[in-house]
């Protein structure tokens, strides 16, 4: 089985890289880009039967830093 973990900076945390991308899009002439948030996608190749709770534990312990990041698990 496979799972995909999406990790994003939490809403209150300013994202300097996202801001830089927003400016660059503006410089390319794309108007109306009001915000950009940049995150990570981590794909996991897992033994069959791995529970979502176990993936959640992986996120809490390593894949995300929950002080600044939120995560979402997608089972594929």
């Amino acid at each position, binding site marked *: 089985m496979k799972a995909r973990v999406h990790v994003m*900076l939490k809403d*209150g*945390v*300013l994202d*300097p*890289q996202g801001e*830089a991308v927003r400016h660059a899009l503006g410089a390319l002439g794309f108007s109306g880009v009001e915000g950009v948030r940049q995150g990570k996608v981590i794909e996991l190749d897992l033994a069959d039967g791995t529970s979502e709770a176990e993936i959640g534990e992986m996120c809490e*312990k*390593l*894949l995300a*830093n929950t*002080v*600044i990041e939120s995560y979402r698990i997608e089972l594929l």
Partner: protein
Amino acid sequence: MKAAVLVFPGSNCDRDLAVALRAAGASVSMVWHKETALPEGTDLVAVPGGFSFGDYLRCGAIAANSPVCAALKTHAERGGFVLGVCNGFQVLTETGLLPGALIRNSGLRYICRTVPLQVETAASAFTSGYDAGVRIDVPIAHHDGNYVLDADGVARLRDADRVAFTYVDNPNGSVADIAGVLSGNRRVLGMMPHPERAADPALGGMDGAPLFTGLIDALADA
């Protein structure tokens, strides 16, 4: 005073930290990240700067989950002293021993220069060699030194006098200009600036040396 300097793949300030600690009078051993125990009688664990594990995933995240960091956490929980510099500070926030997190500099650039800091408190073994309020010049060298903590967390640090150093001219976007923070028991310090790079006149400054000499004096008295 017995110090253990941790070494991870990608550490690059480990020997500098050992030199500064030895110059201040500590006996120092280098401890590889795969070790599961610290040397007997370790008083201080020093977590050096560098790019542990290539900064993969997040700066300090992989190192924080290495075998030696389990021993580091036990040492800290027993009331042992811990100093984390630069990548070492990132490791300490990732272990949860210090609050907050360090993200990409607000200006997105890697910054390597000497900056003025203000010593915010003299009430810790690490800062006892300074007078509170003095300004010191210490090099920074980081890409991810932007300290993030929510407003309540910052207020809690301030109320408990746990901000050790602030930037005089904030170079990286850190909340409340914070450059270094102490744990609740004041025995764990994490800081982005490099005091070990300002602890020998040949390196162009001595403003970092009182951190090491003060620490060793404080531990000798303890």
